[in-house]
């Protein structure tokens, strides 16, 4: 008889781990500091992300932005998987380094802000 403890207990996936079961509410992506020039001059974007099986984290969000929102010269905003050095990312007014950078999972009502520090002053 197979003892019960050999089986791994089933884990019910939490709703936020799957993007499928809940629809994400529209949230804000703001761009400041000169980076808006790459987004056609538009500073505030309200976006609704499409449902997808993988959870939305910043990495996927960046890919999505590159495809959908970025109007010109993607190399000035992104470098590989991440943003170009010199562009700050604020999630709910906190530095993304405190939140886990690319691996932070987006929640409802999150506010993501990109500030470019590359245009001097």
């Amino acid at each position: 008889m197979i003892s019960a403890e050999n089986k791994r207990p089933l884990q019910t996936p939490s709703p936020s781990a799957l993007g499928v079961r809940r629809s994400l509410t529209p949230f804000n992506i703001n761009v400041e500091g000169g980076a808006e020039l790459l987004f056609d001059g538009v500073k505030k974007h309200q976006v609704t992300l499409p449902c997808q099986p993988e959870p939305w984290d910043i990495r996927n969000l960046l890919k999505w932005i590159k495809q959908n929102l970025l109007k010109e010269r993607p190399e000035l905003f992104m470098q590989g998987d991440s943003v170009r050095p010199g562009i700050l990312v604020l999630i709910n007014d906190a530095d993304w380094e405190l939140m886990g950078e690319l691996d932070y999972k987006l929640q409802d009502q999150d506010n993501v802000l990109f500030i470019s520090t590359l245009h001097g002053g």
Partner: protein
Amino acid sequence: MLGKNRVIFPGEKVLLALSGGPASSAMLRQVQEGLSRETAKRLRFVPGLVYVDEGAVCGQSPAQREENLARVEAIVQATGFPYYLAHLEQAFDLPGSILRRGPRGGDKPCPSYKEAVEDFIQQQRQEAADGDGAASLPQRLAQLRTQDMPAGGDPAAPGTRLPAAACTEELVQLFEAAETLTAKEELLQMLRTHLILHTARTQGYTKVMMGDSCTRVAVKLLTNLALGRGAFLAMDTGFMDSRHGDVAVVRPMREYMAKEIAFYNHFFGVPTVITPALRAKRREKTSIHRLMEDFLLGLQAEFPSTISTVYRTGEKLSTAPAEAGSEPGAEPQRCLLCLCALDTLAEEDLALEPTLIAEEVAQRPQGPAGDGCCHAGTQGSCCQSSPTPGAESRAAFLPLLCYSCRLTFKEMVRQRRARGGSASSGRSRAAPRGRSGDPCPPSLPIQHGPSPSRRATQTRCHPTCARRRSAGAAGTTGDTGALLRAGPGLAGPHDGPARGAAGWALRPGLSLPGLR
């Protein structure tokens, strides 16, 4: 930062250079806060603002420039300080005196900082006692509010604020003449600094505050090293830059990183006006400035202490005291454009020699009578048909410039020559002899310098050749005449001294000996 350095005296007029970007806007906001505080730590100087519109060279249309100007004006008007809006085209109208050090402040001895503060406080108490106390500083400034258009534009008609299209065209041509983005950026910085300096001088300001953040200072430090300005690092990136004599440039924001400034602006709602920067025609061609910025920022992402380390190292540099070798009391010779002490006078200047030699040999004109005519040894009169009158004065500019300014200057003339000035197309040799490693041809002439007042430097005719010949510091008129003949050509060659080969408007009366 200001209190620690004690260079801004109470009651002094200080001009804030606003570029619209985050750092200078943050500086403006901090000055506003500092002036309005009621405590003893209040800032006590009299600020003014200057904004230089560079839209012409950044590829902006007139409509966009108007829009930017309107936004900047809205911001500066809200502060209540007197402000001046300048256009980069006005750099053509600058007087020749901009290239000279101003006289140092007055004959009376400068009081110590402490005394000055005490005097000021006394004065304020007296004014309060006289019943004038109601007029606080911002109110008095509001009475003085002016909008100055040095070009004589009509302030009442907002539609005509931009300078004439001809000037804009000239400016664009000037920047087109510089092939590399590096030279363009250097040129832009130079013109901008001169324009701000001129505004400060004419309006009676003794200090200028620039909004260079720590990140920018670190990038500038390394960039200037790459550009050959290593000797002047302390002046270009230090807190106070007093090379202009009467107007000192101060950089109070140099301790704040760009990231901190960005957060500050975001949380305190500081308005900024972002204008696009200079762009190269092709994406791959960037400038040394951009390269260095990318390098440092990339490194900073991995090693967060990079920029502060570079900055701290740079802080240790101080401006050099007067050289011991020169006569006591004599002013060291200064570069014409950047007003730093000339660093090209040393004979054995290793970096400079080979470039000079290579140029001279490459530009050697083809004599019409073959090699024999070059033996003549006169001032190259046999070897070219007609040196244009402007070429000689342009050739004479080079010894007046420091190493990095020379590079920028040469950039501008080289491009026009390559585009085929008719005089020079027949002159450049296919295979200059000196470069390919052959021994020096016997026909190498003895060349005389263009003017006896230059110090003749002994140069080797080829780095491995033992023979030496004397040449003027800038080569002969013939050689560098070919190099400089077809300059950017803003005006005809006969206008050379009048317009300046690089657009710095030197008036015809400004003769070279007069500059010494």
